[in-house]
């Protein structure tokens, strides 16, 4: 047997930071990058006598995610303490949810090689983040920064419905897109605001019984997710084939060596001694709360993608890029709403010039200086023949830089093409008269001379002739 004879079974646990301005149980700022321990108070320092008070915004954001992932929102959920000692955990316990989480039984649809699949969501619960230990600060002491202590997190736990590392990556991307669309998370794996653990097992193909699962921790990029899972699948298959047994354990992914290694065995597993948090009453969702949040839910990335393909007739590739950035997709729709020309043409501009300049200038959609109307006007000028494609790119660059109207820029730069048929005809006649030999050659069948003549007319018109008009006039005069 080989890897191909085994079916991997994967479930993912994603921790996502919620982008509230203050922490989950106190008023401290959640701002990233402040001086160590600048954003702390009695509550998030775990001082004696301090008590938690729930930030309502956190619940709103979590319900948003819950509903976007088709979860049932429990009208009553219970806070629990997860007890363990660690210097970055000031109270000696983390306030989380255990028995009765806020959201349960949802699903997220993803694309796989075999078409779309629904990955079921087991639960989503709320909890507080821990702080950060700093070990290499010098002097031999470890230091603790509690700025992150009490930052709100949701943990999204999938059912073991994922069947390959590629699906795992697809699920994570889709999940991240949803969270970012909802405005509750910045989707940043590298900075730790979106973190993933994976439960991986393998079973012989056709088996109905899952193998022993292993928990993988510390997977902090989309690339690593696939690598870590693939490594782990290979390791488990090899182990089974050589007559061994997969042990229940937690393994850490080492991104440098590209392998997983044992972190703690079943015997060393923490007993978190969960029990209901006596300092917080059960979380009760008031009547109408879920409905209000549902009404305010934006269109989700997958629905938007399908709509971009269906109603704009865009290729999947284009639609994916546009939808991948919600503000970009919104801008596209606003420009298209004014422009009303072929959407693919606009999409080419977005995927070409716009994204190129945005990347060069490191500018987000929100910081763009031109208006959707100005962008639409530019395209209309191209369509009408007033601007050549190349000239339009010049104009667009200036629009991007200064946010001015395209016509104004084009006029200033003298890029508007002459549309006057009489002027074109006059120039054509003059060129034909000045080049009798070439005319003769053309009429004798040497059609490539036409290019030269067009060039002469454009030169005579100082480049402002509309190439289509010039072409047509020349051909007419040359007797076709």
């Amino acid at each position, binding site marked *: 047997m080989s890897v191909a004879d085994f079916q991997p079974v994967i479930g993912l646990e994603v921790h996502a930071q919620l982008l509230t301005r203050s922490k989950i149980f106190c008023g401290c700022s959640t701002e990233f990058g402040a001086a160590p321990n600048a954003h702390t108070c*009695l509550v998030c320092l*775990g001082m*004696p006598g301090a008590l938690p008070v729930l930030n309502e915004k956190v619940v709103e954001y979590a319900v948003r995610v819950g509903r976007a992932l088709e979860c049932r929102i429990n009208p009553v959920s219970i806070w629990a303490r997860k007890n363990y000692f660690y210097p970055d955990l000031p109270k*000696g316990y983390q306030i989380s949810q255990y028995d009765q989480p806020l959201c349960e039984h949802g699903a997220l649809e993803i694309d796989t090689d075999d078409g779309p699949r629904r990955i079921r969501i087991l639960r989503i619960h709320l909890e507080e983040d821990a702080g950060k230990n700093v070990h290499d600060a010098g002097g031999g002491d470890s230091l603790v920064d509690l700025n992150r202590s009490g930052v709100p997190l949701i943990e999204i736990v999938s059912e073991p419905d994922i069947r390959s590392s590629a699906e795992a990556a697809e699920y994570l991307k889709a999940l991240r897109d949803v969270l970012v669309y909802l405005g509750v998370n910045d989707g940043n794996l590298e900075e730790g605001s979106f973190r993933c653990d994976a439960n991986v097992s393998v079973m012989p193909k056709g088996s109905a019984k899952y193998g022993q699962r292993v928990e993988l921790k510390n997977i902090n990029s989309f690339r690593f997710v696939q690598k870590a899972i693939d490594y782990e699948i290979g390791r488990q298959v090899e182990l089974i084939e050589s007559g061994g047994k997969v042990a229940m354990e937690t393994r850490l992914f080492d991104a440098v060596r590209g392998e997983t290694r044992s972190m703690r065995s079943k015997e060393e597993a923490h007993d978190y*001694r969960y029990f209901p948090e006596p*300092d*917080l009453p059960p979380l009760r969702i008031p009547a109408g709360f879920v409905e209000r949040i549902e009404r305010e839910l934006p269109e989700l990335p997958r629905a938007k993608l399908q709509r971009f393909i269906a109603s704009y007739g865009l290729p999947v590739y284009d639609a994916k890029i546009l939808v991948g950035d919600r503000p970009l997709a919104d801008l596209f729709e606003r420009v298209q709403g004014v422009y009303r020309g072929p959407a693919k043409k606009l999409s080419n501009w977005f995927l070409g010039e716009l994204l190129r300049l945005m990347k060069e200038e490191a500018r987000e959609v929100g910081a763009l200086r031109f208006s959707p109307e100005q962008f639409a006007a530019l395209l209309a000028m191209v369509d009408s023949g007033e601007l050549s494609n190349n000239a339009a790119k010049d104009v667009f660059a200036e629009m991007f830089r200064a946010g001015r109207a395209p016509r104004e820029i084009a006029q200033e730069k003298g890029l508007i093409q002459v549309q006057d048929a009489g002027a074109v005809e006059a120039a054509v006649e003059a060129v034909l008269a000045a080049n009798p030999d070439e005319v003769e050659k053309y009429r004798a069948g040497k059609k490539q001379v036409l290019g030269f003549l067009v060039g002469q007319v454009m030169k005579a018109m100082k480049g402002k002739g509309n190439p289509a008009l010039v072409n047509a006039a020349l051909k007419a005069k040359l007797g076709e």
Partner: protein
Amino acid sequence: MEPTDLSMLELGRKLGSGELSSVEAVRACLARVDRLDGRVKAFLRVDREGALAQAELADRRRQEGRRAGPLDGVPVGLKDLFLTEGLPTTAGSRILESFVAPDDGTVVKLLRAAGTPILGKTNMDEFAMGSSTENSAFFPTRNPWNLELSPGGSSGGSAAAVAARMAFGALGTDTGGSIRQPAALTGTVGLKPTYGRVSRLGVVAFASSLDQVGPMTRDVPDCAALLQAIAVHDPGDSTSAPVKAPDYLAEIEAGVKGMKLGLPREYLELPGMDPEVRAAVEAATLALEKMGAQLVPVSLPHTRYALATYYLIAPAEASSNLARYDGVRYGLRVDGRNLLAMYGRTRDQGFGLEVKRRIMLGTYALSAGYYDAYYLKAQKVRTLIKQDFVEAFRTVDAVLSPTSPTAAFRIGEKVSDPLAMYLNDVFTLPCNLAGLPGLSLPCGFTRANLPIGLQILGKPWDEARVLRIARAFEREHDFHRRTPPLGAA
């Protein structure tokens, strides 16, 4: 008559009329502390300058005609579990010996707003775990009625300070009887309010679902007045109920005529009850009957499980609440060769025996494989105990019982036998488990001249009626006026 013989409200009136000043009242308390506390050892720390400074401000407010209320200028003591800005808060523990809170807790803020100078911090069993104040990491407090005896606990320092008239009143906390039992053993009045009535913010936690702050005073009207000052909803404590407190003094003199008072059968059948205590409590119930109350037998069948239930739930919560004392951020740190060694040495040297015992009990009760059998089962029994009271309160207005099965006991007598010590709390525990208000007041004396306490348990939020019953009894008796035989130093 010395100023310290006055009740809080009497002193408050004299302060209002200008007959006495708050500075004089504070000085009188400090003089008694100087004279007596070397023997009683009620205070862990006396804040002379702070108390005098607050008294001066109170006197100035009176002169300017803006007294803060009936207790403005009346000095009080605080159990050393309440966070006080700038004044150390030890919780009776080595692990917090050097701890100074950066801010006052809510009740301390409320006291400051009410104008009561804070004399100092009173002794207690470490982290409020105990019934004798012997578990203080610093020294045991002695009972003013007999210095060989314990004042009870855990709020033994507050009780002794009030009984010895070193403070006009004090605040304690009550998790399983820690206000009522020491009140009973020192001949003072102590009230544990309904869970959620008083904010726990800024009170070092023992068992969060049971802890409640309450007043300890010399008589019932004082108890009502001090409760009034602190019974304020606090959005900073999510378990503080948004229930407005009534005027506790308004109907305190209205008597018990027509009230139905329950006598739980099971309580009188409990083993280990001192016959003198039983006799005094029976006499007290008959006295109330004579005043027009109707005595009704009630049944609280799950009472016998209260002790076992309490000693699973309270240690479980405590084991988690005390995890924060890890040597990392504040309090004691004893360095070790690595992190685990530092944790171990800090907590080994920082915590006393009883605290360690309860941390272990609680950790065990919450452990995987034991949770369902212990913690979860205890929570279910807790619900049954609550329902017992709901059932009883369908027919009665309040329930009467002894506060403690015995009068004050000898220091050292029970400290090596934790089970005997725990039995002290059999009458007081159910009230915490059910979240009810409970009050203890003096209802008699033993032949050895030791106070005996009567416990009155009320419906949730019904402190006013509990106080009214207590006051009816108190008015007809003089037990609360007797003073401990402390003599001259």
